[in-house]
């Protein structure tokens, strides 16, 4: 796709939508408008086909096989690791560990790294914008170890308030675990600042990239963070698969997480030795199908023209913000200048669940509720929001449909 093409956005998007058959359906008598992409993205045909090809052509258990199908499966499986290394820009494939999702990745670090390195009185720093998956594992660790979870506050716009950074990041800080992009508000967080600050005190940094990788390129070597993780299912890939990137030397020094097949070197009742990274952290039969399909998802993601994605998503966000802001009593939560294409909002005196229900009846799929960010909702003093999150395959017309459906819902509820 050339820059020329990307000017003719609607055409390019139409073509793209052909890859997503699920979008072409009616819901409750209306054309489906899928605006729940931050919860999970839809999957292009190539991803679905890679699953079918696997099961109809070369399904087998991997690594230990001597037969043809096992070789094909192993190669396809390991190819995804290679693709992910390139995707995140690390030259070292051993730094790519497959997990069952972002949540699993974070728990792996909280346990396998945390239990060795976090002690009584130590501090773990998260932010007010975190998803429960990047809060609870640290609370569990802190509780076991007698450590303290500290919280980066936010401004009314939904950005980190780094005024007290010197105090928040201190000699007791052992790890900083924050998201790159807030799933509830869409804020793109200045993680570079925290990574630099962490270096000063020797703290590790884990970045929850669940919401970032689908929107912009991430270079873990340029960022120089210790861990970066995300889920395949929010990046055109299947459910049940995630990635943990970790610096090789950090991973090597970590205890294993799950015990079982593949992660060992030798097992005996007199003593067991562990395999090298990445296998040390991949116990048991992995999600072979899912990881192979994840490879197809990465191919799809990297085949998209970066400028096109950026400009189209930017336009969707801009237009939606303009339209929604014009609705009386509608308040947008998350007003940073640095946002991905996500809009969280509430309408005066209307419960988000009521809005969501009436939008659904008009074919519009949005998410309502706390978005697994209860501390953030508590901070704003609200029960939750309505969240419309846009993907590259959404259109300007769909935002008009959202707008009209919203007006109708509000008129019914007011």
């Amino acid at each position, binding site marked *: 796709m050339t820059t020329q093409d990307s000017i003719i956005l609607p055409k390019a998007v139409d073509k793209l939508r052909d890859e997503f058959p699920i979008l072409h359906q009616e819901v*409750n008598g209306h054309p489906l408008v899928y605006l729940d992409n931050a919860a999970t993205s839809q999957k292009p045909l190539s991803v679905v086909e890679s699953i079918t090809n696997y099961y109809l052509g070369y399904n087998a258990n991997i690594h230990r096989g001597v037969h043809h199908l096992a070789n094909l499966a192993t190669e396809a499986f390991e190819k995804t690791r290679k693709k992910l290394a390139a995707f995140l820009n690390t030259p070292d494939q051993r730094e790519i560990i497959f997990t069952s999702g972002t949540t699993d990745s974070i728990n792996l670090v909280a346990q396998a790294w945390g239990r060795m390195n976090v002690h009584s009185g130590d501090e773990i720093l998260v932010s007010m914008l975190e998803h429960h998956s990047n809060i609870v594992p640290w609370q569990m660790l802190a509780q076991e170890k007698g450590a303290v979870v500290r919280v980066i506050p936010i401004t009314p716009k939904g950005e980190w308030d780094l005024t007290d950074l010197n105090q928040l990041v201190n000699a007791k800080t052992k790890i900083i675990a924050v998201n790159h992009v807030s799933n509830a508000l869409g804020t793109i967080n200045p993680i570079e600042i925290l990574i630099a600050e962490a270096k000063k005190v020797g703290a590790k940094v884990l970045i929850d990239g669940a919401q970032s990788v689908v929107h912009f390129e991430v270079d873990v070597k340029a960022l120089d963070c210790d861990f970066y993780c995300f889920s395949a299912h929010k990046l055109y890939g299947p459910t049940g698969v995630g990635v943990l990137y970790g610096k090789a030397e950090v991973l090597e020094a970590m205890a294993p997480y799950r015990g079982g097949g593949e992660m060992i070197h030798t097992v005996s009742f007199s003593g067991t030795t562990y395999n090298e990274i990445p296998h040390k952290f991949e116990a048991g039969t992995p999600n072979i199908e899912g990881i192979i399909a994840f490879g197809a998802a990465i191919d799809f993601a990297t085949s998209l023209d970066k400028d096109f994605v950026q400009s189209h998503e930017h336009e969707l966000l801009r237009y939606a913000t303009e339209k929604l802001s014009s609705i009386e009593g509608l308040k947008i939560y998350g007003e940073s200048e640095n946002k991905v294409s996500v809009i969280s909002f509430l309408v005066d005196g*209307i*419960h*988000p*669940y*009521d809005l*969501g*229900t*009436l939008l659904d*009846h008009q074919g519009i799929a949005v998410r*309502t*509720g*706390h978005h697994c960010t209860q501390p953030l909702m508590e901070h704003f003093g609200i*029960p*939750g929001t309505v969240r419309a999150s846009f993907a590259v395959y959404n259109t300007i017309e769909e935002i008009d449909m959202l707008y009209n459906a919203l007006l109708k819902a509000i008129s*019914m*509820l007011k």
Partner: protein
Amino acid sequence: MATIEERQQEIISEFSMFDDWMQKYEYIIELGKDLPLLEEEKKSDDLLIKGCQSRVWLHADYANDGTIHFKADSDAIITKGLVSLVIRVLDGMPAKEIAQSDLHFVNDIGLSSHLSPTRSNGLASMIKQMKIYGLAKM
């Protein structure tokens, strides 16, 4: 007095007059607005039934004759409207009948998504809680 089943049939026939979902919801919203079911000070945490989406406060009074009287409220208006329908069906019924009731009307009037136990809204949890109150006095 009408049985639980008769009350449900009544609601079903009321709803059969609506042509589309919009009219149904308009009616439910109206029910929700009309009925301030619980005083603000009664919305205490021990009466609270938490769904992931909408919260419901449920208050039960056991009468000496073995019947149960309910009051309830919700922060979401659609849930509140449905709550008022459920109350209409179960209020003042004998504990045993409440415990054994099958509230199929929510399905029948085409709002099944509100009743599914896999939905995290307050309505499904409320109905479950009402049956537990019934069971407790059976």
